[in-house]
């Protein structure tokens, strides 16, 4: 005898929800999944209110993968159902990886037609004058995801500015966020723990970013895409992912298999971390140090990081040297705007550290005007 749905008690249960163990039918699964995202959206802001404002222009960071595809679908549905009054866009980044990105961009174009959302594709090539394929030609296949990560973050911001968008939403799900919490702990980056678990992040100079899937398990996103027969594209990036993160991901999946609540438990731990005063002081000092122009070369903010990477590439540094630059740079801080806003005038006085990027900026401004 089939198990009956614990919500409607009439239809056959097809999904066991990882968060609660609840057994639900297909329709009730759609309903609770969408409803939970709606709750995250309407209560996810810092003070407990909605992350969206009526009339807001919102760009969905669309990779063609399952998370952003389901996000585009669910936001389209919720925007209509609950009348959020949002202007939705799809924003895609073309890293310039032959075969990999070509297929996923085709998928995004199909999504554009399916959801009737305007699509903007921004390429590394037009932004930086470099495709990832060219980067790999020069620096080799190892560690190039550093380039990917630093470049992509900026590219989304620039694309959003180009669209005149107020808010970027991404498909990061509960598993991704738990993984980031783990990574921050494994790297000793405790100052980022709270921030990386926030639904919405914004600082003075950044476009607002949100993760409406903060509480959505990867399993449910995959099931949703499968039952709705959504068009997405899934393949591994042909360039090797960061090994350290790979271990964290597998470890997390192992934990989840034994105890599904591990995901939300880890997120809760990240949220609850409170730094003691001494740590806070040293973190603050670190920030001041970072923003002090005299020290700019010692502790580079993300903008300088990308520039250093670009500079390294453009001056044809050998592989080892570029890799050293990468190591020193690390990853771009969560939610931090790294290059000047799209419409802002160029600051020539910044000196040669930003030369590479400024040239790229000029190139983009000419093209998009």
């Amino acid at each position, binding site marked *: 005898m089939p198990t009956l749905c614990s919500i409607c008690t009439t239809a056959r249960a097809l999904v066991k929800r990882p968060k609660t163990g609840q057994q639900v039918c297909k329709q009730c699964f759609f309903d609770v999944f969408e409803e939970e995202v709606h709750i995250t959206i309407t209560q996810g802001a810092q003070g407990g209110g909605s992350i969206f404002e009526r009339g807001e222009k919102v760009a969905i960071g669309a990779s063609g993968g399952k998370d952003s595809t389901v996000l585009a679908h669910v936001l*389209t549905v919720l925007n209509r159902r609950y009348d959020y009054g949002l202007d939705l866009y799809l924003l895609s980044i073309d890293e310039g990886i032959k075969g990999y990105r070509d297929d996923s961009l085709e998928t995004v174009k199909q999504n554009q037609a399916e*959801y009737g959302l305007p699509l903007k594709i921004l390429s590394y090539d037009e932004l930086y004058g470099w495709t990832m394929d060219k980067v790999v030609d020069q620096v080799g296949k190892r560690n190039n995801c550093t380039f990917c990560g630093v470049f992509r973050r900026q590219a989304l911001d620039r694309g959003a500015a180009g669209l005149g968008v107020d808010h970027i939403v991404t498909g*990061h799900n509960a598993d991704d966020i738990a993984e980031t919490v783990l990574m921050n702990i494994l790297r000793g980056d405790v100052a980022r723990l709270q921030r990386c678990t926030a639904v919405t992040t914004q600082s003075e100079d950044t476009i607002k970013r949100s993760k409406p899937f903060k509480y959505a398990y990867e399993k449910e996103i995959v099931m949703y895409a499968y039952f709705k027969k959504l068009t997405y594209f899934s393949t591994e990036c042909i360039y090797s992912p960061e090994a350290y993160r790979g271990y964290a991901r597998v470890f997390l999946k192992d934990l989840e298999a034994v105890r599904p609540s591990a995901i939300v438990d880890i997120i809760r731990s990240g949220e609850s971390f409170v730094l003691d005063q001494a740590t806070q002081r040293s973190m603050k000092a670190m920030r001041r140090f970072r923003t002090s122009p005299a020290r700019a070369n010692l502790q580079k903010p993300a903008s300088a990081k990308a520039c250093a990477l670009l500079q390294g590439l453009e001056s044809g540094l050998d592989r080892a040297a570029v890799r050293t630059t990468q190591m020193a740079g690390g990853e771009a801080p969560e939610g931090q705007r790294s290059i000047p806003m799209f419409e802002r005038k160029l600051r020539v006085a910044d000196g040669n550290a930003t030369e590479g990027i400024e040239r790229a900026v000029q190139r983009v401004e000419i093209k998009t005007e």
Partner: protein
Amino acid sequence: MAQPETLVPASTSGLGYTSGSAPAASPASAVRTRTADELEIRLEFGGGLHLIFSQQPKHTIFLPRTTPGADARPADIRYLIAYMKDNLVSEREDMFVDGEGVRPGILVLINDADWELEGELDYVLQDRDEIVFISTLHGG
């Protein structure tokens, strides 16, 4: 609440591949006919998992109704996974198998139902069952 379905063309798999990029495997029935002591099982792979199954997202196999050896039992998912490991995985079997089950992070659907509702490894296979394996380990 039914509006979203109309947005989606019926041709897509919902599994992360499109029919254009992935030709269907020729079913086992095209090669020979099923014998009385075999089950016809349809397999489908999502989330990029087809890449380690000869790049083909759909397979039809004939599986012995009972497991080989002295302690023969009716074919279950545990046996199916062992059979797939020996006969179907084309590369990187560690991306699929873990012990006698599948690697954590791979979802299994039995006739569209979450295998956690069907007894997981102990589910006894029926003729023409459709089993879907979806990897959640890669790609956002």
